[in-house]
């Protein structure tokens, strides 16, 4: 909101220059976003928060400066006109048919006005604040709005059919043309100012074209009303009309000042446009505002702010802002709220006023004196950190993708999905549903990268997926990773970095060790249409499918427009979060020498390695510390349907050196059992 510094100085005598004024106002909560200078014109762009309509005018700003001791207010001149001629009621009748939307309506009638330009000094001030001068009467209503903060409107009395002003709800499908020349279609929740026949203004927002002040206007009605904020806000938003007037009514104008504002305007009109003010203004004000009384208890300031303040200081501030001290008793004070501060209804509001004027930056800084020990955070965050450390060490870059996507992106991975969490007012189709898997959004990001030529891609994300559950959603903590399969980097010495299914599985196993403790993942048949069934596996924990690992299916790749092979992983961690192991446990290791034996077998290709591994590990061979697959080969030299595997066995005792014969015997026993179990041939 722009304010001219020169105009402001009409109401405050201060030693501060524009920068000083800006600094003080900012410190008091009226942030000056910008100081604009053009020659000797200085304009402050002030961000007045929605709760402070009282400060959206020059007098309000002057009050702020004076209260904090930065100047002396210059009062607005008292009206000096003498009312003459027939009383107002003889020329216009006011009927408030919607008292629930209009709390007060003042009409001041002025006869024999001469429309012309407003005085140069007024035009200059208006222009400084970027308000276009129109004519003396209109400029005066604008001037008073900016001076006192109360929106006014001037009607040409000729246009009021039946000499009536009716404040009523619009009739369904009623239309009117507002001052900006636009035809507005109204609904019954809109409040209009009508004459005997038709709307002549959109209450509190904008006048109608049919009743505007013209060059030949002679008799004018000055409206100074008070409308309920919610009503004005709804209409203003629905019709997308935002005016200086609606801005104030929406936030709560000063109901107490309505007559005073009308009189101020009338006084200026008499001075600068001539005319005679009719006696006995109309003032429909059925329920005059009752000023709330608020008790400020002795200890409250200290309790909330952490700072003692003298009652005299507090009194000076609140009285400066227009509050009236009704009682004082043993440190407690009782305050009456002025009508321009409808935002102040509770003790805490008074405390805020005092704190604001004292200056936040002058207040002490301490730390909370909570004596009880803090509570411990669940291990989720640290588990996720560990996953991230494994995957980044494995060359994966962490991505953060949107939680929403298109329905088709979800369906690509889960064609069977019946329900998704749908956003009723999305930005677009592409962001209209919550993702049901992370791969649904991560794969989009992969597609974008590939399009941009970033081919050496390894990305991962940890975050939530969202499945409908009751009215809300089941939000599942999930990890996902995806990589472009193949050699991603090759160094000058031939060293290669490869991304493939087993690289991804290896990293998954590392994560597993770090976060899942004793739980370990089993691999089942993959039933996800998102993955290529021959090149993927379902990830099982406690016999439940919790994710998938392997190559993405052609259907998915086609959907995302990707012509590379992608390997991916998605794992739902939700049910295991509580198992996240916060720290590793030390396991003692043997100081005795270790002995290794290698054996190669030829066996049926259909036998899964998991069977072999679990067989060997469960043999219960003494001193066997580890079994490791170190080669697997099929092809030339190996009969069709067979595969050659080479396994390394490590033997080690915890307390003695084993001799060769002992180990050979154990090894041969194992080999024999293996051959027997799998029908294998020793190579």
């Amino acid at each position: 909101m722009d304010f001219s510094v020169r105009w402001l100085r009409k109401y405050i005598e201060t030693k501060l220059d524009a920068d000083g004024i800006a600094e003080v106002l900012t410190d008091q909560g009226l942030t000056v976003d910008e100081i604009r200078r053009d020659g000797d014109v200085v304009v402050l762009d002030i961000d007045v928060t929605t709760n402070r309509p009282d400060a959206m005018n020059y007098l309000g700003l002057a009050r702020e400066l004076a209260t904090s001791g930065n100047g002396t207010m210059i009062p607005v001149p008292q009206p000096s006109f003498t009312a003459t001629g027939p009383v107002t009621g003889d020329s216009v009748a006011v009927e408030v048919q919607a008292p629930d939307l209009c709390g007060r309506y003042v009409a001041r009638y002025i006869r024999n006005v001469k429309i012309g330009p407003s005085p140069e000094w007024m035009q200059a001030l208006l222009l400084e604040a970027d308000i276009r001068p129109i004519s003396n009467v209109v400029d005066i209503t604008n001037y008073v709005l900016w001076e006192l903060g109360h929106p006014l409107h001037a009607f040409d009395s000729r246009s009021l059919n039946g000499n009536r002003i009716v404040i009523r709800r619009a009739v369904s499908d009623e239309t009117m043309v507002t001052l900006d020349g636009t035809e507005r279609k109204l609904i019954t929740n809109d409040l209009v100012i009508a004459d005997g026949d038709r709307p002549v203004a959109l209450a509190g927002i904008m006048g109608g074209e049919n009743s505007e002040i013209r060059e030949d206007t002679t008799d004018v009605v000055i409206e100074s009303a008070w409308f309920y904020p919610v009503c004005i806000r709804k209409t203003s938003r629905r019709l997308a009309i935002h005016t200086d007037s609606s801005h104030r009514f929406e936030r709560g104008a000063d109901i107490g000042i309505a007559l005073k504002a009308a009189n101020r305007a009338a006084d200026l009109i008499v001075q600068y446009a001539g005319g005679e003010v009719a006696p006995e203004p109309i003032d429909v004000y059925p329920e005059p505002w009752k000023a709330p009384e608020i008790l400020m208890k002795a200890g409250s300031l200290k309790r909330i702010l952490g700072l003692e303040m003298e009652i005299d200081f507090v009194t000076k501030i609140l009285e400066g802002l227009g509050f009236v001290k009704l009682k004082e008793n043993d440190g407690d004070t009782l305050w009456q709220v002025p009508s321009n501060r409808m935002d102040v209804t509770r003790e805490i509001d008074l405390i805020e006023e005092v704190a604001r004027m004292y200056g936040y930056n002058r207040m002490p800084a301490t730390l909370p004196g909570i004596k009880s020990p803090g509570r411990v955070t669940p291990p989720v965050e640290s588990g996720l950190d560990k996953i991230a450390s494994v995957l980044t060490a494995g060359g994966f870059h962490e991505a953060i993708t949107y939680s929403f996507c298109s329905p088709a992106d979800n369906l690509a991975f889960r064609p069977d999905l019946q329900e998704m969490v749908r956003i009723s007012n999305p930005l677009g189709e592409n962001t209209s549903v919550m993702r049901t898997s992370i791969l649904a959004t991560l794969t989009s990001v992969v597609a974008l990268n590939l399009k941009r030529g970033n081919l050496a891609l390894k990305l991962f994300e940890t975050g939530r997926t969202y499945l409908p559950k009751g009215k809300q959603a089941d939000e599942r903590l999930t990890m996902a990773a995806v990589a472009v399969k193949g050699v991603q980097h090759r160094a000058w010495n031939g060293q290669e970095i490869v991304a493939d299914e087993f690289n991804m599985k290896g990293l998954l196993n590392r994560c597993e060790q770090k976060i899942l403790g004793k739980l370990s993942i089993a691999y089942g048949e993959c039933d996800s249409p998102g993955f290529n069934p021959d090149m993927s596996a379902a990830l099982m924990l406690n016999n439940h499918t919790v994710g998938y690992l392997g190559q993405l299916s052609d259907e998915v790749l086609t959907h995302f427009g990707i012509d590379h092979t992608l390997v991916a992983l998605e794992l739902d961690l939700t049910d295991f979060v509580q198992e996240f192991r916060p720290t590793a446990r030390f396991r003692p290791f043997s100081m005795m020498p270790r002995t290794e034996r290698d054996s190669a077998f030829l066996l049926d290709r259909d036998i899964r390695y998991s069977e072999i591994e679990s067989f060997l590990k469960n043999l219960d061979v003494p001193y066997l510390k580890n079994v490791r697959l170190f080669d697997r080969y099929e092809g030339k030299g190996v009969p069709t349907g067979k595969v050659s595997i080479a396994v390394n066995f490590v033997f080690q005792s915890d307390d003695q050196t084993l001799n060769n014969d002992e180990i050979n015997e154990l090894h041969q026993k194992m080999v024999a059992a293996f051959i027997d179990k799998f029908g294998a041939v020793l190579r």
Partner: protein
Amino acid sequence: MSDLKARIQGIRDAFNQALDQVEGLKALEELRNQYLGRKRGIVKDLLADLRTVSKELRPELGQAVNRLKNTVENALTEKLEALKSGESTGDLQRKMDLTLPGVAPELGSLHPLKVVNRDLIRIFERMGYEVASASEIETDFYNFEALGLTKNHPARDMQDTFYVTDEVVLRTHTSNVQIHLMQESKPPFKAIMPGRVYRKDADITHSPMFHQVEGLVVGEQITFADLKGTLEHFLKQLFGSDTKMRLRPSYFPFTEPSAEVDVSCIMCGGKGCRVCKNSGWLEILGAGMVDPVVFKNVGYDPEVVSGFAFGLGVERVAMLKYGISDIRMFFEDDLRFLSQFT
């Protein structure tokens, strides 16, 4: 004794010379036998001769012989591979050109928002805060009503909301966690709530999804001064100990008194620059004393407890810290963006 040392050096030189002249697998095999043969190899002989050396000197010389053995073995293996692949080893084994590029595993990177998020969490964890979370798809009550944002509250316009139904929204801030936390626990406590939030807004500085970290401290003697002290400490931890803080009174429906909190510009230190629009200050967080209405809504007595809350945008901090001007970069996840934050 020095005889043996000299012999070792002599053997090394002779081996290197011989290795240079090897031109075929057979010759290489012969060289291997000559030096490492089990029965009569030169190295084997050396080991035998060690026995003649005095006990005190034996370990040192033993190690020297082992080193020679390793060198010879490695050189033979390298040469073998070179011969197999038909390359010349040149002087690789004796004079390595370490100006050749290093070969490191390709490391991944953490997302810059996660880095900042983790930094923020750590600062508060060190101050004894717990980390709390709740749903992102939230009821109107937890996202708005309980915070004093009643249905017709003008401040609802400040936040353009994504709706699932009339009563269910994508949370517009992590303040919903504050309500859950207060309902589920008893003061005193200190907690922060990081997480994803959503607003219907998309341009260079606004993303429909972004991240917040909010904090909440509730107890019997929690004051505005405590809020100031906490934020000052936090901001110095985050931006450095020279950082200055400025509070401006402001308005939020769920706190009172409320403040916008600025830090001295991290680019120019407060002198004024393009980033701070010459003001010397950067707006960094919103804060205030928990409004009594909020306490009443969760069943606390505002005459007994008081508390403060604050919130900041993770993107805002990351943009300042890393000099990123377009918020959309964070969610496009272009590899050339992500890999800068290793």
